[in-house]
């Protein structure tokens, strides 16, 4: 019997579009900054040495741009530990099929060692691409300093490469 073309059926929970989750705040530590730098090959002294950083006009040891991910991931882990809902659990990300599609950072300030930064997530929306083979989720995160205001905004696209469906 002929079948009509299957409607794409995704894995994300689309009812979470528009959801906002305030995640736990995250303390930025110089040791963690140094660890990330060592793996990505970053050797600039502004990330390791407070006096070198100040000599170049930074208020103190400053994290490299992609440290924004660390803040977001670790804040999420604290939420998991506390038994709180996390954005990745809420959208029902399935790590067997999850790919990272895109990442954008807009900086309004610095992520500094010693900061305690707040993290707020928003589920922007979902869509299918490539005829339903890829299922996209768009996420937005704002990281703020209670003293200095917004520091960095993250726009992220994560993708399910949808598995073959048993029918």
């Amino acid at each position, binding site marked *: 019997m002929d079948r009509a073309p299957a409607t794409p059926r995704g894995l994300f929970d689309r009812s979470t579009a528009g959801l906002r989750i305030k995640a736990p705040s995250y303390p930025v530590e110089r040791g963690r900054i140094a660890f990330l730098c060592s*793996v*990505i090959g970053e050797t600039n002294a502004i990330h390791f040495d407070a006096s070198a950083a100040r000599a170049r006009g930074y208020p103190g040891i400053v994290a*490299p741009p*992609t440290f924004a991910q660390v803040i977001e991931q670790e804040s999420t882990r604290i939420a998991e530990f506390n038994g709180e809902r996390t954005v990745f659990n809420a959208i029902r990300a399935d790590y067997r099929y999850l*790919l990272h599609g*895109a990442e954008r*950072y807009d900086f309004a300030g610095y992520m500094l060692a010693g900061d305690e930064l707040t993290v707020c997530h928003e589920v922007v929306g979902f869509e299918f691409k490539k005829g339903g083979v890829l299922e996209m989720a768009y996420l937005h995160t704002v990281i703020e300093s209670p003293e200095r205001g917004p520091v960095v905004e993250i726009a992220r696209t994560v993708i399910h490469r949808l598995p073959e469906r048993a029918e």
Partner: protein
Amino acid sequence: MPGPLHAEPGIGLPPLTFGPVTRRMLALFAGASGDHNAVHIDSDFAMESGLEDVFAQGMLMMGPLTRVVTDWAGLHRLESISVRFLAITPVGAVCRCEGQVEERFETDAGPRLRVALSSVIEGGAPNLSGEAIVRL
């Protein structure tokens, strides 16, 4: 190589090479980044998920590509950076990270440069493309 203040469209930023990507690097990046997704560090999990092997975290590759801009312009000039992940980066990959000034433009907050970024796996395909906005 002119600095950002005197850069004209078309000039290339000093490139850098990152890699080869090793399993050890993927494990360390999982710890450093906080992204513990097993598909990057556990080959059993990767194969159960229908993949041939673990592959690099996209964000591991964004780090060096971002350095192309910050090494040249300074962190204090980086206003925004965005990347798209074009292909999986396999274990063993060596990536050539490059940037090129595309445009100089004015905003209400002052002049800016638009820098195009690309990461290409040696002997293979582009794995990241991106764009940075640099404050002048």
